[in-house]
């Protein structure tokens, strides 16, 4: 048996994306020095849970964790998909687990029907709402659309959680090549305000407040108030506002704000609206939250040049670009989107796809 390429990393940062790249590229990954100097060294419970989830969605994955938990080796198997359920720990929200799954799901053997239980919205990760309205449309850019769905069955606010989402994703043979350089202009703004186990009036108040900022720009603003009751509203009280702006070329910008103790819903709404404006101001065709997803799908495209215009890379994106190179050997060409304009902060990312074909897919 041929020795498979092994990629080594140190540190706990960027763990999820490295695992995703490892599974997609088929190269084994070894990560060591995971919080070696911490009072509580080694992998955290959510990271262990993530590894377990990845073991569940794949077939033949071997995970070896060292005794101290500060190092582990992952030999990836194939992505199997199918109906699955996973209970997420309360230390991180569902978004933490959903993010790598979204990257893997289109390349599985069977279409994904993953049920995740835990916290649906918190201030660390993308909420289930933004996943539904923001992340999934990004997958549609790459031809992954039919049957792509995220159902929020129950909402669960921190700290006790109790939410449940179901993620359905079709499989594809190959993702489409992206050529997205026209950011367009914002034509509509949508949003979801939800409140669980609190006064349902809170969501209306949030909507009012955010409209006070956004109304000046365009009239096409619909903010939905989404109230869950009883069993479906989870175990803890909480509320949040997630906003989504869409441009004429269907570029999406999203932002959200989560309830905090002692802060009025109006302030939360203002914060969300201003965060959205920040994203819009950064421009590009993809907002900062989805840079990695889009870049990954560009790399996995057919052997053609794909281009995308985006803002300045976030630190995570920079590391991700480096990781992509160590796993796939692909580098991006990154130039200013508008060479004639010196102030233009937007960049044009172009790469030559690896021609990644879903080898897991069964024919006939």
């Amino acid at each position, binding site marked *: 048996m041929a020795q498979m390429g092994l990629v080594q990393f140190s540190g706990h940062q960027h763990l999820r994306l490295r695992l995703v790249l490892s599974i997609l590229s088929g190269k084994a990954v070894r990560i060591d020095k995971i919080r070696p100097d911490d009072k509580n060294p080694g992998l955290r419970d959510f990271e262990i849970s993530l590894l377990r989830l990845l073991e569940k969605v794949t077939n033949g994955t071997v995970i070896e964790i060292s005794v101290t938990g500060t190092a582990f080796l992952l030999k990836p198997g194939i992505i199997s998909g199918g109906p699955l359920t996973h209970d997420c720990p309360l230390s991180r929200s569902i978004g933490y687990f959903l993010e790598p799954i979204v990257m893997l799901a289109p390349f599985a053997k069977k279409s994904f029907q993953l049920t995740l239980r835990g916290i649906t919205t918190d201030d660390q990760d993308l909420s289930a709402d933004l996943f539904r309205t923001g992340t999934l449309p990004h997958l549609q850019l790459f031809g992954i659309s039919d049957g792509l769905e995220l159902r929020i069955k129950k909402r669960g606010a921190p700290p006790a959680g109790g939410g449940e989402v179901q993620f359905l994703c079709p499989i594809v043979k190959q993702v489409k090549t992206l050529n997205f350089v026209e950011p367009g202009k914002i034509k509509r703004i949508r949003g979801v305000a939800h409140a669980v186990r609190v006064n349902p009036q809170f969501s209306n108040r949030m909507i009012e407040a955010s409209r006070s900022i956004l109304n000046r720009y365009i009239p096409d603003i619909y903010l939905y108030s989404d109230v869950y009751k009883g069993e479906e509203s989870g175990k803890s009280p909480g509320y949040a506002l997630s906003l989504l702006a869409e441009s004429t070329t269907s570029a999406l910008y999203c932002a959200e704000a989560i309830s905090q103790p002692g802060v009025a819903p109006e302030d939360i709404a203002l914060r969300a609206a201003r965060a959205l404006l920040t994203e819009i101001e950064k421009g590009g065709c993809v907002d900062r939250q989805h840079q990695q997803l889009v870049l990954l799908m560009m790399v996995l495209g057919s052997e053609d040049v794909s281009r995308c215009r985006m803002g300045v890379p*976030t630190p995570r994106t*920079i590391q991700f670009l480096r990781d992509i190179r160590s796993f796939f050997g692909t580098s991006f*060409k990154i130039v200013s989107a508008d060479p004639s304009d010196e102030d233009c902060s937007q960049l044009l990312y172009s790469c030559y796809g690896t021609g990644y074909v879903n080898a897991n897919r069964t024919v006939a």
Partner: protein
Amino acid sequence: MEDRPHKAHRPSKTDKKDKGKGKEKQHGFNEKAFAPKSGRRADRQGRRNVERDQQRLHVPLVNRTPDSEPPPVIVAIVGPPGVGKTTLLKSLVRRYTKQTLNDVKGPVTVVSAKKRRLTFIECNNNLNSMIDIGKIADLVLLMIDASFGLEMETFEFLNILQAHGFPKVIGVLTHLDLIKKADTLKATKKSLKKRFWTEIYQGAKLFYLSGVLNGRYPDTEILNLSRFISVMKFRPLVFRNSHPYLLADRIEDLTPREQVRLSKGKCDRTVTVYGYIRGTNLRMGTKVHIPGVGDMDMESVSILGDPCPLPDADSEKRRKLSEKKKLVIHAPMSDVGGVMYDKDAVWINVPGSFTRGNTDVPQGEGEQMVMDLQDAEATLEAGVAQSQIRLLGSSSKHLTVGTLDDDDDSDGSEDESGSEEEEDSGFDSDAISDGDNNTEDPVPSAQNTGRKSRRDVARTLPAASSSRIPPDADVEYYESDSDLGDGDESVDLGRRFEMEDGDAFEIPSDDPMDEAEEEEEEDDEDENADAPKWKRNLAEQAQALSSNSQRRKDWMKLIYSSDLTPEEVLSGKDDRLMTVDEEDDDNDEFFRLKTVSRRVEDEEEIDSSKVVSSEEDLKKWVGEEALDSIRTLFITGTARQEGGGQEEYEEMGSDFEDLEAGDAAAPSASKPIDAEALQAAALAAKKEELKRKFDEQYDDPEASKADFYTEKKDEISRQLQLNMEEFKDVSAEARALVEGFRPGAYVRIELVDVPCEMIEHFDPSFPIVVGGLLAAEERFGYVQVRLKRHRWYVKTLKTNDPLIFSLGWRRFQSVPIYSLDDHSIRMRMLKYTPEHMHCYATFYGPVSLPNTGFCAFNTLVADTPGFRVSATGVVLDVDRSVKIVKKIKLTGVPYKIFKNTAFVKDMFNSALEVAKFEGANIRTVSGIRGQVKKGLSKPDGAFRATFEDKVLMSDIIFLRAWYSIQPRKFYNPVTSLLLLDKSKWEGMRLTGQVRRDEGIKTPLSVNSTYKRIERPERRFNPLVIPKKLQAALPYASKPRIMKPQQRETYMQKRAVVMEPEERKAVALLQQIRALRKDQVARRKEKKSGKRAMHQKKLEAEEERKSEKVKERKKEVMRGIGKKSKREADVEEGRGPKRRKT
């Protein structure tokens, strides 16, 4: 010259008067003649045309091969031995290059047209070669001996082609001159054509070549063939269109000679292969597979100058290929052409004898140079040493050159060379050939016999490698540690002549590029190799950056070739700092402390892709003007901040959002003229765009609603256009980094850890294919395929028998399990492949993408009788585990029977086993169904079972279960290229074969012996019905028992007394009967005698006939023997075996 008048045109042969007449006759398409006669017919005709149009369409496929500089088309010449492959190859090469090759080996590349090159390769009669050639050939010239007919190898090859995507095939019939009779010739042609057409497709091209003239086929026939080759169009094949690959036309061993010597030639080699990239872009970081050798990592890839370049722009103007360009030929393994370009050297092969004074050889520049070098009488060093320079006129001693060390060195080397000279007389020529000391031996030695010997060495490279090591090269190697990385400079490559690359030869000097590449690739792993260069380079770059007053970052460099953390990249840390950091990294212990502290800081950072804007960022949006500043980003917004013309412009073209233009205009407001010019330009561009759109719509209103096919085609071409343009302005090395090496480029691939046998046993007549692997294909797993035993393969295939697969690039042996889908419930194992039906097969091996075709063989050796392709199929699924079950029946017997309950034994061994099967369905042979209830304690493994009816003690009870099995993890690549005799590869053998080979008897189990089955006669007791019951039965049901009659019957009791007439009559009858009997007996006797006579006669006849047949057979055999003898004479012992289909 100029004032000489041009020759007048020849007058046309057809008379002008005739032209008028011709009009009436009007040749060609006569529209009226084909006009439909009725409306119905018109309708049908129209429909048919539309259907035909649709039939012509193929699924639009992207062709990854660039149109501008495509790689040469691979034309493979395939056929059984003695059919004339080499002759055809020579004829074709002569047709294209006007050169006659004496000894063709390996691929031969020629320029055939302005935009087309051809690589000819001859395929030998080895199945491994046929498989490899079938995977790479673009066009196959399939040669058939018409005097003999189609042979088994031809059919095997066609089946291999079919499994791996069918390339274009042209049939070539040869030996037509051997058929003397015109009628036979015609019939043969017809029948062969028919057979050929059924194999390929109706109307496949078939060429006829008559006899050989001057060792070539007739020029006119070859010309025709070459015309057909030149207009051939190729449709991309799916597998080749998704994999990069290369047909190596040259292979060199770069292993340091010393290493080879020390290991007695057994060390792993560093090897470079050269060839044109085909298929898709070849990228670094992927693995390659060389069929017959194995998977390998590419150490480096570099583009070399094209050894067989297409005509360039100046000759482009001509319609035809110029005569000069026609002479280009590239065939390194056959060693023609003379000059060879390596990465950093040029090899000149001098034709003819290499002794001085030999004037009949044409002397070019290269030859002259080498001759001049030979003229030197002593080395420069020797010259200097001999010259006696005195510093002062008065000093008595002249200066000595060279330190003590140097002397030692040279002494040592001389010693070494001396000793080697003793053992190897051919050493002198080696010493000459070494580029560094080419002035060493001024005496032209007798061994320098020029071409012949040199060619040998070029081919049998490894032979030279074992013992002949030029001493000085060695020394140099040890002294220069900086050259450790690229050892090829100091390595002696046979008896060729090396020149430092100068301007005289147009060699693309790849050195800087390579270094840059290395630098980028190995940025943090090993900087030790060329640290100083690295630093210098960086410093320059940093300076360039800082001098470039722009603040703009070079993101690619910052991300990919710096060691900065992402945060530092964003905060705009300088490059210069980075280099300092790196230095620290190398030799400073303090740096570690720093990283630790940094890591502790990072502890707070969480792994989250959500970007949470800080409060300060959000505060920005409190003011009104901040809010207004992004109004332009919304559809309702207009550019307010500019005013004047800008606003108008924005409003006018609100349909076209042009963000960049707006932004671009902003800073240039200080320069109003500039701004105006810009505006004007933008306006003009806009107008242009509108005009174009209008024109398009006006000219072709149908264009907007193009059909699916054209739409797809347009999309593909647009994407290809983008691919070409996107990286046009990027430097070559960055481009290689980003998109890899394009198809059509001539590259040199360095492979490390190549098994030494590949070099030691290298044979240029076996093709070396370098196939790139996709990421998925490097992995291993269980591959499920749909498989069908080939209908010409005589045996069936058995589960767990090893089978050789040719799948993807690879050839390997694995152990498949055959199975069938049992009503979508389970995958059920089959012991044997079904007849005339597909089945599934699952085996362990390298992953291939679903829908890849394959073919399988039981053996690859040549002397197998019959058809060797045993199965073909396609990959369906790839997984890490399989679920195949085989049926298992557990049997038991009842030992106690109650009504519907029975106690069963002998099915299980323990109560535990029974517990596992509680509730399982069981059945008797007679079909009574039942269930396992509960285990019994007393006899181990007995259980209680209930049935739907009472079972008998004689019933056998069985339980049907499914046992899951896994294919064996066996993968054995066919390493045929590593063998000395490449046709003798032997994989895992079957047990029977091993026993046969080793002479071991099959162990005989006593239980398995065949014995006579003794079945005791079954005795059935008579049915006894109790008297009481009988009495109670109704009359109809009462058994009717009758005793045999005791008394005499009435008739028996009577005595018969006959009357005299009666008695007479009876006597007469008796006599007649007796007579008759006698008559019959006599007749019978007579008949049998006659029959015997007839039999004898027949036998005699038969004997006579058989005598005749024997005679005739003898005659035929004599004829065959004569023919084979003649053939053998012609072929000189080539291909002793020939199998008639």
